């Protein structure tokens, strides 16, 4: 695990150059008043994604959801969560939240040992909260604004800033450091299916609640990101 942490930090250093370039791109975009200047393109991509989702991702996620017993699903989520804690902690630290970083480190240690390599989330039961941090949020805390909204098939919705952040997150992802390409692919697929399955209950909500699904998803995504950046307590925006 310490090896992975060192690896992550080394990668981070290399990425700061790339990140810097992307930051500039995001900043330029932020000057555009509109949040969604590429709406036409995004709507097309959204439709493409709907088809892909309808015929591939959703059926697989539904099958997974129906076939896999709850404790196993929970463990899958826990293992990926545990593997990601190093990066979550690093981002807490980069945002100047030393206390959160410490708790995340404690979670990692507890769940990797008492929780048997992350299969069980013992730390949460002990009252150690799991934080949700990523590099996009770190960039936001550093003052980078959203930039234009983008929707891409499979990848889904992102602001430009979160795209840059996501590129860094992907680079720092421990799953990428799995040696065997078969295992790496399996881990990537299982995680994707796990995430998609977690979103299944939201499908019907969007279907029923939205007048325009594209806008509903976009605005929900933007609100959700804002909520994460403010760690669950954003100021109200009522005009």
């Amino acid at each position, binding site marked *: 695990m310490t090896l992975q942490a060192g690896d992550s930090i080394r990668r981070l250093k290399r990425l700061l150059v790339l990140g810097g370039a992307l930051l500039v791109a995001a900043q330029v975009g932020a000057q555009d008043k509109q949040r969604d200047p590429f709406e036409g393109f995004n709507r097309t991509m959204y439709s493409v994604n709907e088809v892909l989702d309808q015929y591939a991702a959703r059926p697989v996620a539904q099958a997974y959801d129906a076939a896999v017993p*709850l*404790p196993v*699903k*929970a463990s899958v*989520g826990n293992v990926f969560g545990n593997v990601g804690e190093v990066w979550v902690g690093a981002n807490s630290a980069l945002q100047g939240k030393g206390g959160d970083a410490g708790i995340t480190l404690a979670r990692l240690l507890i769940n990797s040992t008492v929780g048997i390599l992350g299969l069980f989330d013992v730390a949460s039961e002990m009252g150690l909260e*799991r934080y949700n941090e990523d590099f996009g949020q770190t960039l936001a805390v550093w003052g980078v604004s959203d930039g234009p909204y983008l929707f891409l098939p499979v990848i889904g919705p992102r602001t430009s800033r979160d795209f840059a952040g996501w590129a860094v997150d992907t680079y720092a992802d421990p799953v990428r450091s799995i040696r065997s390409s078969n295992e790496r692919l399996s881990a990537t697929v299982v995680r994707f299916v796990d995430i998609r399955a*977690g979103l299944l*209950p939201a499908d*019907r*909500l969007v279907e*029923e*609640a*939205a*007048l*325009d699904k594209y*806008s*509903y998803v*976009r*605005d*929900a995504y933007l*609100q*959700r990101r*804002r*909520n*994460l950046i403010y760690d*669950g*307590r*954003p100021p*109200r*925006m*009522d*005009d």
Partner: protein
Amino acid sequence: MMKKLFVTLIAALLSFSAVAGDAPDVLIKRVSEEVLEIVRQDKDVRNGDIQKIAALVDAKVLPHFNFQRMTALAVGRDWRSASTAQKTRLQAEFKMLLVRTYANALTSYSNQRIVFRPFRMRDGETEVLVRSEVVQPGAQPVQIDYWLELADGQWKVFDVVVAGISLVTNYREQFAREVRDGGIDGLIASLAAKNKSLEVTANNRAAR
């Protein structure tokens, strides 16, 4: 007979005054507990019996919501240009849409637990946030926050925020576009059409 009626009346009055005095966090806790208890015991509700759910929501939940403020928030700037009649219709249609969304959430209830976060409130505050989390085995907890305002001595909810997404303000862009395309009446028509189609879907589902 008269005596029985009288006792019932007194009991009703007493419970009403207790409700009126509830602090915002106590109110939210009590209402969620009551609703979940009914959902736990009533199989029809869990199976999506829309009539029963609507009755439940009407009796237990709606009295604690300020739908005028919610609708005004969702419509945003255009609210001011709406006539009184338009406001009434907007409110009715939006309410129906939100009730359906809420009913849908109730039917997917299994064995989640609601945990309330510590509630703080300053003296004289008239707008507060009650924060809670829905905890379920094998999944990340879902944050559910309620915004309440004090009016005429009663706390009423004017926004519900799920996982950071406001069920009210998330409509703002969609509503603004409808108003741009077809005016306030256009928005009312779209909402009515949406509610109509949801009703048809629900009926089809029930018929199956």
